[in-house]
């Protein structure tokens, strides 16, 4: 592992962690508001994040901006399969129950909600079970 070169990603992650907490994105209650259409907050966050990311990618492509090491920026295309439907529905259900998607799980643990370690381990178990029995699910 190249420890030093990976530290920059840790710093970007820290910024993300700060935003997660300060904008209450990791709040179970904000997620409930979102799924009940009781607040614009989460829609504003996800929508403006998509917009800013989209414009940034267009700029990178239009001006052929290279990475800091001079590589061409490559985005691997995602292929459609039925998992995006079935898996998507299952994840949505879990999101509503736990009030957290994978990123906020890490952030919730960081704020001291240590019981969320169990939620995270359970999510790892869910991932493992998917990987183990992958071929039995429609793809």
């Amino acid at each position, binding site marked *: 592992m190249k420890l030093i070169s990976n530290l920059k990603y840790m710093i*970007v992650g820290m910024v993300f962690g700060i935003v997660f907490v300060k904008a209450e994105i990791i709040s179970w209650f904000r997620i409930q508001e979102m799924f009940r259409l009781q607040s614009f907050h989460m829609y504003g966050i996800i929508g*403006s994040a998509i917009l800013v990311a989209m414009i940034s990618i267009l700029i990178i492509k239009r001006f052929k901006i290279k990475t800091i090491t001079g590589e061409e920026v490559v985005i691997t295309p995602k292929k459609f399969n039925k998992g995006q439907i079935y898996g998507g529905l299952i994840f949505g259900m879990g999101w509503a129950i736990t009030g957290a998607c994978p*990123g906020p799980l890490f952030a919730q643990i960081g704020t001291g909600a240590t019981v969320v370690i169990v939620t995270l381990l359970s999510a*790892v178990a869910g991932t493992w079970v998917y990987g183990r029995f992958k071929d039995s699910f429609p793809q």
Partner: protein
Amino acid sequence: MNFLDWIKQPWPWYVAGPLIGLIVPGLLLLGNKPFGISANLRHICAACIPAKIPFFQYDWKKESWNLFFVLGILLGAYLTSLWLSNPDELKLNSKLVNELSGYGIHDFSKLVPSEMINWTNLLSLKGFILIVFGGFMVGFGTRYAGGCTSGHAIMGISSLQWPSLIATICFMVGGFFTANLILPYILKL
């Protein structure tokens, strides 16, 4: 109001959203890395419990940047709760407060509802569903879908990938259905 009081307030969506959006070009320009959190759950499986399963046979060390990224999320959240946390209660929609009061939830001061999601409740049916079962669905569903809110909703849609749009629609359908029609029964337990 001094700077510290100002920064301790909750940040509005138009500050948080664009900052998150900038993570996408940030990771691309730092090293051609795609934004996506749930892949880490797979990397943890590949590193700790691969059990000769083909899905976990790959060089996870090449993806270790992402584990550093989530470690950063954890640290950032820790430092924020240490120094920058908002001293006031969350300002929630009164309809939600009324609904949840009906289930005996009265503490809205924390980001994670500690009245339900805590170590003591872990082995009650309600706690088990909210913590263990919900977590399992998050891990299983995101891997089956090939991504979560970051990988599909933000990275995928912003790079104009229609499978990610479908995944995101399904996230929302599953969430709306569960929050409105199933969660009330869980919270009544």
